[in-house]
């Protein structure tokens, strides 16, 4: 469960003041899959970093599991936009997945079982002994996701995780994220700049305006829970919802 109340964030440094987030208020109930869309540079990463406790808010408040965030909250995992750089190049895939569990003081055998399960869930059972840099971009992203799953978070934040992979891999990974969410029942906040992706994935799409960032639209996606790249994307309702989000984004891009 996530709450964002009047979040305002200004970057101030190097002789430059940038208002990254103007005034954001929304909340995501337990177990929901929410997508955040907005044009590049509108402050999506900033929002996520504040939620993850990696960045202090200038004003306003964010709560994760009803607790105000002042430091990285327990039970919250992040999949970073720069997934390749978020993996430890000197650790093998399995060790990468296990490291957070080791930090929790989990026993070796439990760690191994969890890591194996998570890697199987993302279809990477064979790659556990490889180094991340021996894998393709899509596979690296799966490792990052497996690490997040193995951490058994209540809340999962994903920052444009598929922005840098090819179209086919992207479709596969989208379905993977849906299945992970359904299977593990986490609260998922998924940031993207891709309207199609947001509508296809989420139960709800939050459209952000260009800066100073506010919530421009909050849309419930009433597509069936079982989704499929072919049928869902050709569904009339999908097209209609996508059109709504698209129109909204055009509007916020060119304010009257």
């Amino acid at each position, binding site marked *: 469960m996530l709450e964002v109340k009047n979040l305002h964030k200004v970057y101030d440094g190097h002789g430059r003041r940038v208002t990254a987030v103007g005034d954001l208020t929304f909340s995501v109930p337990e177990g929901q899959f929410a997508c955040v869309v907005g044009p590049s540079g509108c402050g999506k990463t900033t929002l996520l970093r504040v939620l*993850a406790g990696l960045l202090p808010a200038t004003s306003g408040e964010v709560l994760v599991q009803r607790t105000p965030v002042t430091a*990285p909250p327990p039970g919250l995992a*992040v999949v970073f936009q720069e997934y390749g750089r978020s993996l430890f190049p000197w650790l093998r895939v399995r060790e990468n997945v296990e490291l957070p569990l080791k930090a929790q003081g989990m026993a070796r055998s439990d760690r191994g079982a969890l890591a194996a399960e998570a890697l199987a869930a993302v279809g990477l059972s064979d790659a556990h002994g490889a180094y991340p840099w021996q894998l393709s971009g899509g596979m690296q992203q799966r490792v990052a996701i497996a*690490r997040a799953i193995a951490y058994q978070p209540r809340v999962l934040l994903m920052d444009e995780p598929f922005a840098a992979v090819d179209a086919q891999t992207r479709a596969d990974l989208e379905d993977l994220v849906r299945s992970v969410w359904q299977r593990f029942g986490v609260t998922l906040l998924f940031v993207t700049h891709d309207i199609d992706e947001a509508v296809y994935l989420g139960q709800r799409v939050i459209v952000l305006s260009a800066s100073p960032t506010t919530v421009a639209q909050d849309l419930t996606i009433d597509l069936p829970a079982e989704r499929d790249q072919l049928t869902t994307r050709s569904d009339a309702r999908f097209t209609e919802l996508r059109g709504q989000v698209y129109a909204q984004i055009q509007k916020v891009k060119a304010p009257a």
Partner: protein
Amino acid sequence: MRLVSRVLLLIGLPVVLLATWWFGSAGSEDFYRPSLSSIMDAFVRTWTWDMFVQQVFPSLWRLLVGYVIAVALGVALGGLIGTYRSVRSLLEPVLEFLRAFPPPVLVPAAILLSGIGDRTKILVIVFGCVWPVLLNTIEGVRGRDEVLSDTCRSYGITGTLRLRHLVLRAASPQIMTGARQALPLAIILMVISEMMAANDGLGFTVLQFQRGFQIPEMWSGVLLLGVIGIVLSLLFRLAERSLLGWYHGQRAGQREW
């Protein structure tokens, strides 16, 4: 056929050079440039096991102790200084100044301070070798990827686990660069501290040969020093390969794109 030419390429020139030396110097009358065969004779005669125990191992021991302390100290201090910006600002000019000293001048100062025992030589090696390690470690710690730092914070990776898996590992290529730069320095300091202030050790022995006009023995000592330099650099490369396998693999992969 390919194999033969490769082997020829690898060993051809060294063989030619050695042969030139061997035959060029055969029957040499020049007192200071003895024939290679007499140098080899002297080598076998001089560097017996006893000699190793008495002269070579003490040198290598001091080298090892000094070098290890220097690297450990450099990494520890570098990690500390690299982590805190104000500590860095405070110490950077001092470090720049200390680093600029040509390390051999430490030898006379160290002799004044602590005589000509083992401690002096180890002190000299530590003080001379710590800077490349220290400064490179600072760079490495500063330059680590902030996405990885964020990952550690998000996933609760703290304390010694963070130190081991993030701070030191991320800086390890730079640490190794520093250690690599420090190794020849350590050898230089070992040899000249023994030449200037010792009654045992390799540098001392070789210089004794020179002073006693035992020229073939002196040449054999020079050869031995050369061999030690080569062996140490090979050992270093082995260590580096196993420690930095991930790093070279990653860079090789990036170059392919």
